[in-house]
């Protein structure tokens, strides 16, 4: 296979990491909402934790993007 084509395929495969990030973000917001529905008075205190969890989960997906960029541009 040509190197250029292999690079494209590899970069595309690296984007699969976003699936995990999507699942993670969904779980975080879903669980936050169900928790907030059960106990609305405690919801506000946990909002910073929600944002922290969201950012941490999103970052793992973006590591996949970094891998894709390294494949495309660094080699």
């Amino acid at each position: 296979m040509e190197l250029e084509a292999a690079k494209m395929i590899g970069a595309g495969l690296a984007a699969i990491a976003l699936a995990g990030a999507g699942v993670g973000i969904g779980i975080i917001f879903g669980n936050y909402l169900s928790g907030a529905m059960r106990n609305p008075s405690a919801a506000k205190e946990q909002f910073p934790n929600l944002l922290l969890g969201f950012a941490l989960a999103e970052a793992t997906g973006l590591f996949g993007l970094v891998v894709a960029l390294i494949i495309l541009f660094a080699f």
Partner: protein
Amino acid sequence: MSSNPMHQFEVYRIGPEINLGMVNLSFTNASLFMAISAFALIFLLFLGTNKKLLIPSKMQLITEMSYSFVAKMINDTAGAAAKPFFPFIFTLFMFVLFCNMVGMLPYSFTVTSHIIVTFVLAAVVFIGVTILGFVKHGIKYLELFVPKGVPAVLLPLIIIIEIISYLSRPVSLAVRLFANMMAGHTMLKVFGGFVISLGLLGGWLPLGFSVALTGLEILVAFLQAYVFAILTCIYLNDALNLHH
């Protein structure tokens, strides 16, 4: 005009070329926007604390809010022991926030979308926290790698995992900020390109999307600065209050 979405991250030299030995110290657009962010920050804080009124003006209100926001964040995550590090974390948070926000302006350059900038910030945090931990606890700081209540059989494995996770802290801290900013700005440019290529008839849909994405990016710009600062607080907490 280049339509490459990566073109916006190009660093080029402004003004004369300055070489110090082997190191190229020329003034670039990255340094220009870093200086703009820093001076905007200093200007805002100076304006906010210029006249100290009992009933604050709008500028003073912004300054006081950012102060109490960071103070509360440090108090909640690292406790009262981290109070002396307030200036450092405040500076870090505000600098990253301003770099991100200045990058959201059209035709500007996002300083934090370059990994060298974020990695230096993360390395300062990592090295500082490690030195602090050893100064405060001595050799007992290595107990950080030994979690409590772990069976002795698992300990060798756990210690290796803990050491790897400790050493990967600066990398993950740097890559998180860098990747978020870069991915966001690339996405904005890609959608901007769709507006042009679809023309007057079909371009309205990506244009609307672009506006929504800009809103999301402003949220992300704030969120990433917040996450950077709060993770610094968490690392600081590990170093100050061992095993709590």
